[in-house]
């Protein structure tokens, strides 16, 4: 285990944790329910750690990316359904990220939103084309560390730490009426979905295969998943806590992603604002890369095409065309003028529906001693895996009714 590689891996995971959905829902959760939803972020983070670690282990030992497993374990029909649903979910998520990027560029430069969308997409496409896989991941992940501004801003405003700590204890606030309870339920589902987005696992496991992980990398995989995602989650929790402090009492339920950057501007002024916007830009750009590449990986793996960024683009032509085409489609969605916040809500909704079908084959193979030998799930991974599978299945069943009953969380 190379300490430098491990540190870079952890920092990349921290910087790459937050995306546009987490930015939006963390801020809204804090303004609507104070610190009461912190535990849902913490709880979901354990879930994504469990499945990321599992997918990295399967990639290292069985050399199987997620969508190979989906096809072989679910069969052609159910596998194809999972593929189509995940393509739609990732595409909407990618469009939301590109829309978010254009907004952030608009806040930073004042350049028109509809001009910034193709510019941002082009820059991302060029960066994927020219950078090796490891550096695609690292450039966006490491620059996303500007997001630490939000954690520093939280410390600077001296929030009531005992109340923040109390938010980590699972509870439902007292005195909520039925409608507020339903809204609280919708936020729980949305946060589970935002933190456990399936694209993160598709990208992570495909990355493991791109980097030719083997059993010697299992410890690095475990530490990167636990520490990187754990610390990354603290950034999202910082946004939630600052929102509870600033936005809730001011009757702000952030309707515009740019409002979140105010959290750093209030204690630190213009430089806080600029650093926060840069952090948001790189974190969201990294997520746009991951969602689009995750889709191309899924399609290529399902149909057995040659795939990977370790190959020259022309050595895997269908894979290359797929990721470029997916960016073009996502950009087209943004250029229709659809509101970014609507895209975020749809991304959350579609993702939670896909989660159980994505994670079930992974769970089955990670526990299969024939493939995984001594690296198969132990009792803790097995217990946690099935527990979280139950949670995401329940969340998937509740998602649409809660969305309709609460008008997308607006009550």
């Amino acid at each position: 285990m190379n300490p430098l590689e491990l540190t870079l891996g952890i920092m990349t995971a921290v910087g790459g944790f937050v995306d546009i959905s987490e930015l939006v829902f963390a801020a809204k959760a804090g303004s609507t329910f104070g610190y009461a939803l912190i535990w849902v972020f913490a709880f979901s983070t354990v879930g994504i750690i469990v499945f990321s670690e599992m997918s990295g282990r399967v990639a290292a030992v069985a050399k199987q990316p997620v969508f190979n497993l989906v096809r072989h374990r679910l069969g052609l029909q159910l596998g194809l359904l999972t593929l189509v649903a995940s393509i739609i979910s990732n595409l909407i998520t990618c469009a939301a990220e590109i829309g978010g990027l254009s907004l952030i560029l608009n806040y930073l430069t004042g350049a028109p939103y509809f001009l910034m969308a193709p510019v941002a997409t082009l820059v991302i496409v060029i960066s994927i084309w020219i950078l090796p896989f490891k550096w695609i991941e690292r450039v966006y992940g490491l620059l996303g560390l500007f997001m630490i501004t939000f954690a520093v801003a939280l410390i600077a405003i001296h929030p009531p730490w005992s109340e923040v700590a109390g938010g980590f204890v699972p509870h439902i606030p007292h005195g909520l009426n039925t409608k507020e309870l339903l809204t609280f339920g919708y936020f729980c589902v949305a946060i589970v979905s935002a933190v456990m987005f399936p694209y993160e696992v598709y990208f992570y496991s495909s990355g493991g295969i791109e980097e030719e992980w083997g059993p010697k990398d299992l410890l690095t995989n475990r530490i990167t998943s636990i520490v990187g995602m754990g610390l990354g989650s603290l950034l999202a929790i910082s946004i939630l806590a600052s929102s509870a402090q600033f936005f809730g009492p001011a009757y702000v339920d952030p309707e515009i992603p740019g409002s979140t950057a105010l959290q750093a501007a209030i204690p630190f002024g213009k430089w806080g604002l600029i650093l926060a916007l840069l952090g948001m830009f790189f974190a969201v750009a990294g997520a746009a890369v991951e969602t689009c590449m995750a889709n191309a990986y899924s399609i290529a793996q399902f149909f057995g095409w040659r795939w990977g960024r370790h190959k020259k683009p022309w050595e895997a032509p269908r894979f290359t065309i797929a990721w470029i085409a997916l960016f073009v489609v996502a950009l087209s969605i943004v250029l229709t003028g659809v509101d970014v916040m609507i895209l975020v809500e749809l991304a959350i909704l579609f993702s939670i529906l896909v989660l159980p079908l994505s994670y079930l084959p992974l769970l089955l193979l990670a526990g299969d001693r024939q493939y995984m030998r001594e690296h198969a799930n132990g009792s803790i991974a097995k217990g946690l895996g099935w527990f979280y599978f139950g949670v995401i299945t329940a969340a998937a069943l509740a998602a649409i009714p809660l969305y309709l009953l609460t008008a997308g969380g607006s009550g």
Partner: protein
Amino acid sequence: MWRVTLVLAPLAACSSGPYDDVQYIKQARSLGAEWALVNEQASQNKLTSTYVDSMHKWIRQQLGGSSTSLTQPSSRYGEEIQALFHESDNAPPERLRAHVKKLKEIEDQLESA
């Protein structure tokens, strides 16, 4: 899928009238509060002028959307949202917060009804 639609359609149809407008009142109230916060921080020289201009543009655009989505635009809350919409970009935070307060009161009344 059609079964899901059949089950969910009655749930979606449970609300009507001013109740339908609560989500737009909430949205307008929040946008007004965001606007006030932006102007307050801008007056303390804590924001870049590019950011402030962009936020004003997006807030106004979203407010226009909330206003046109109302089922009862000539109601008290419809007029309040219109009054907020017609404030100048650099309106004092206190004035914007006065609209926010009125919208919050209407929102609470409708929700408790």
